[in-house]
């Protein structure tokens, strides 16, 4: 891993302009990591122009002067991968924030480096391979119980592999050799991987299993597949972060990587304080045990913000390589794009649309391409699902980041300020959103939920669509002027919105809704609609069907944990009320 002194080179600073500095006399290659100035701030080469080497610096450059030295490490920006990642919180360049607090106090000062993993901590390594076995790149050599998650120790992806000469159980630091191959190669648990390079896989598969999130509008109407990509654009305060946090909490991924990219400090603190106390609905263990956090908040250096997204996805890929389903949230990709813009403008590059660099679209698609459901080099199956928040200026989706993202991702959850203002949460607009995975996932819903689910979903979407059309008429003539049948459609649509679509992230029960419960709820609403329709054919007025009292109780199901008896009772009451109506 270590490169020799011959690759090192020293140059001197010539110009400092914010996070971008120019050095001369430096032998450097693109994306080399360099140490800038007397304080050895970490930076990365981003442009070479004649003898000028242009560097983005991951720390504040105040006070740095021309003439100070610049040293090339000859390495590219890389993360440390191995046991110890889970439950950590890192900045954009994988410095553990907890370690930084211990080293420099409550505020992030510069010039302090800290490795991503503890190099002292010992882990209990249990081999799953034995002497004489032949291994190749990616193969799992053994395991370490990291949290409740089993960490698989793998042959590094670029290794040649070979026959195992020595391997044994024991207590090791990440730097100690756990396995020796016949050719003398020593394998340690630590892998360093350059963040801008995707980790290799054997094969990419088509996603056909949903990532179940416990959020009704997502699972029910616009599902994302495991290994899929989704974007949540929306104006400020519309619910991007809450939705992402809900996914981080309740999605049935095995590992969660949450990137706070250029957002608020308090939001990361909230995750840090909340996650250890929340239980994974599947394992019953604290959610923190399956989580890695990257926090490069808005007031931390922009160059490190640019890197944070790569740091996060590389960690996600690493867990995928072990055969896990990983979901990655990036909040917000717009801040990442803005970091690119800021650096690009300091480079005096020719700007593209709205000042963003011309390579914006390419960077976005490269990033989302790292998602996917795959067969790993070691033949295990794993996935990385990527969910990116987008923060369009003025809430206008026609801007470049939203548009370029929508060209790539398969699921679009369109947040709508109109809905959030009336506290309809999640404020996802059901008319504009879409999921291109629906067809691929139909079979799963048929098999795992009910053959009735897909038709039920189509029915609900139809009612909502119809409501939108009817609302246009209502706006002109009032609701009393609608035909009888349509007045009831409006009522059923309201029920779908208020009972099914609205979901309160802060209610202890409603925050997570199992697929079965989702199905039961929708079925109950449909049941009312059917009863209403029948009653109308035998002469009931809209007022009569709408005034059915028991249907108003359906909303209480959301807040009730063991809801089945309640649901059965409501159904029965509903039927009785309709019967009584007919009798009268």
């Amino acid at each position, binding site marked *: 891993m270590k490169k020799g002194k011959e690759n090192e080179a020293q140059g001197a600073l010539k110009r400092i302009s*914010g996070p971008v500095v120019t050095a001369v006399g430096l032998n450097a290659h693109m994306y080399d990591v360099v140490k800038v100035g007397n304080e050895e701030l970490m930076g990365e080469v981003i442009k070479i122009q004649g003898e000028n080497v242009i560097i983005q610096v991951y720390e504040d450059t105040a*006070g740095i002067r021309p*003439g100070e030295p610049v040293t090339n490490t000859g390495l590219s920006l890389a993360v440390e991968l191995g046991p110890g990642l889970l439950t950590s919180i890192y900045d954009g360049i994988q410095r553990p924030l907890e370690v930084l607090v211990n080293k420099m106090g409550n*505020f992030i000062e510069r010039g302090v480096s800290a490795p991503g993993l503890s190099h002292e901590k010992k882990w209990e390594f249990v081999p799953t391979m034995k002497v004489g076995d032949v291994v190749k790149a990616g193969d799992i050599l053994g395991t370490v119980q990291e949290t409740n998650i089993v960490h698989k120790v793998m042959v590094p992806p670029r290794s040649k592999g070979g026959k195992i000469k020595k391997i044994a159980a024991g207590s090791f630091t990440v730097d100690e050799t756990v396995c020796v191959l016949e050719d003398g190669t020593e394998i340690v648990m630590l892998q360093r991987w350059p963040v801008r390079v995707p980790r290799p896989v054997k094969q990419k598969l088509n996603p056909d299993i949903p990532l179940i999130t416990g959020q009704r509008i997502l699972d029910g109407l616009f599902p994302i597949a495991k290994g899929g990509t989704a974007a949540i654009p929306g104006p400020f305060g519309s619910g991007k972060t809450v939705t992402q946090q809900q996914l981080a909490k309740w999605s049935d991924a095995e590992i969660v990587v949450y990137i706070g990219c250029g957002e608020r*400090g308090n939001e990361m603190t909230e995750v840090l304080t909340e996650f250890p106390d929340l239980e994974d609905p599947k394992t019953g263990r604290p959610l923190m045990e399956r989580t890695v956090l990257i926090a490069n908040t808005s007031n931390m250096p922009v160059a490190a913000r640019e890197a944070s997204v790569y740091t996060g996805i590389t960690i996600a890929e690493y867990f995928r390589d072990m055969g896990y389903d990983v979901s990655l949230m990036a909040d917000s990709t717009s801040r990442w794009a803005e970091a690119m813009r800021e650096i690009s403008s300091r480079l005096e590059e020719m700007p593209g649309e709205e000042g963003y660099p011309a390579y914006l679209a390419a960077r976005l698609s490269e990033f989302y391409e790292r998602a996917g459901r795959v067969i790993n080099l070691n033949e295990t199956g794993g996935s990385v699902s990527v969910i990116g928040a987008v923060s369009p*200026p003025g809430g206008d989706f026609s801007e470049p980041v939203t548009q370029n993202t929508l060209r790539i991702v398969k699921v679009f959850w369109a947040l709508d300020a109109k809905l959030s203002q009336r506290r309809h949460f999640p404020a996802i607009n059901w008319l504009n959103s879409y999921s291109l995975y629906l067809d691929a996932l139909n079979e799963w819903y048929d098999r795992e939920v009910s053959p009735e689910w897909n038709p039920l979903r189509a029915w609900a979407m139809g009612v909502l669509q119809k409501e939108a059309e009817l609302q246009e008429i209502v706006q002109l003539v009032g609701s009393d002027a609608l035909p009888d049948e349509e007045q009831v459609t409006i009522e059923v649509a309201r029920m779908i919105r208020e009972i099914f679509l609205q979901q309160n992230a802060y209610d202890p029960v409603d925050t997570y809704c199992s697929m079965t419960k989702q199905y039961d709820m929708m079925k109950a609403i449909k049941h009312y609609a059917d009863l209403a329709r029948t009653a109308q054919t035998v002469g009931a007025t809209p007022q009569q069907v709408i005034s059915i009292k028991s249907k108003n109780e359906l909303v209480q199901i959301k807040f009730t944990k063991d809801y089945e008896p309640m649901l059965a009772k409501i159904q029965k009451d509903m039927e009785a009320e309709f019967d009584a109506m007919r009798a009268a």
Partner: protein
Amino acid sequence: MKEYRTVTQIAGPLVFVEKTEPVGYSELVNIVTADGTVKRGQVLDTSDEIVVIQVFETTAGIGRDSGIRFTGETIKMPVGKDMLGRILSGGGKPIDGGPEIVPEKRLEITGAAINPYARASPADFIQTGISTIDGTNTLVRGQKLPIFSSSGLPHNDVALQIARQAKVPGSTEEFAVVFAAMGITREEANYFMADFEKTGALERAVVFLNLADDPAVERIITPRLALTTAEYLAFELGYHVLVILTDMTNYCEALRQIGAAREEVPGRRGYPGYMYTDLASIYERAGIIKGTKGSVTQIPILTMPGDDITHPIPDLTGYITEGQIVVNRDLHRKGIYAPINVLPSLSRLMNLGIGKGHTREDHKKVSDQLYAAYAEGNDLRGLVAIVGKDALSERDRMFLEFADLFEDRFVRQGLYEDRSIEETLDLSWDLLSTLPEEQLVRIDRELIQKYHPKYRKKAQG
């Protein structure tokens, strides 16, 4: 200290100097003009050929004959305990006729970012006595909650009422106030000062005044000086500090002016592309730190150009702050004070500071229900204008009336009316009880049976 007379160019607030020894980025610079005045500036770009300085005062009087002294250090602010009760210029110099500040420390004004790991989650409910804030957009200690307003609206009254009435129920600690004015008129400033004096707040306040006729570029440092002071008071002396920054729109204009002078590629509507990051370096300086006693709560005020909430200034602010309180012209025209439109308003930290153990268990659901009902009623107003009241269903008419009632009783209150949270919540139930019970779909049955006036009366009777 070496003095250079190698100014090559002066453009707007920028001075270009060549043939210097190595000068540090962000370094503080003193510029001595021919008549001996010293002006302060900061290095924006440094290289072995040319150094670009941004001058915080007017460049009038600066010429090629001016002397440039690089101080070798970044801008620092002297802070000390005796700052409370003092009035300083937007550049941090005492202007109240009092002595210089006796510095106990000199702190970097750019302020390093609080390590997210060191933060504690804000959770202490601040009662402002204003129903639209306490009831539906609750402020908590350590939050940054701006007021979005427009010219001609009483945002200053709202801010002052908050400063006057803010308290954490059950706690005796008072807030210290740091007030930073950027580009506001003398008259507005006097209005604030008079109120501070009247209520005795001045003794526990530090005031920074950059007024409309003070140099625009100085506004770049005014909020940073104020926040450095606030952090010192909070995290070193243990005060709970309420910071009022007004008017952030003027701050952003100054930022745009510098961007233009540097001939940068402008972002939306001519504001610099890095304005989000720059504003974040101000707004993020709020919060609570684990293991320390104090807190910094920020209430920035901004006026939305053309009442447009999508304008880059409110837009970027809203993306950084933890919600916003929106002051609305229509309500003001109707003669309602405090004219806060709850619909676009939001407090993101509300959930941490309300409910059982903080305010009352029904708070969250009541607030959600008020929103839903008011939003529905408000929408129907548009419809009524077209089809008339008669075309509405019974249900719709009830919501329409609710919206009027909500504005008249919940939103409307006196400038000096200090409602307790219980009063606000009980008032909410009074209003909600005008709707049929089955329309209260946001509230669970249990809470309805406990708090709905209908059941309460029964329980009492």
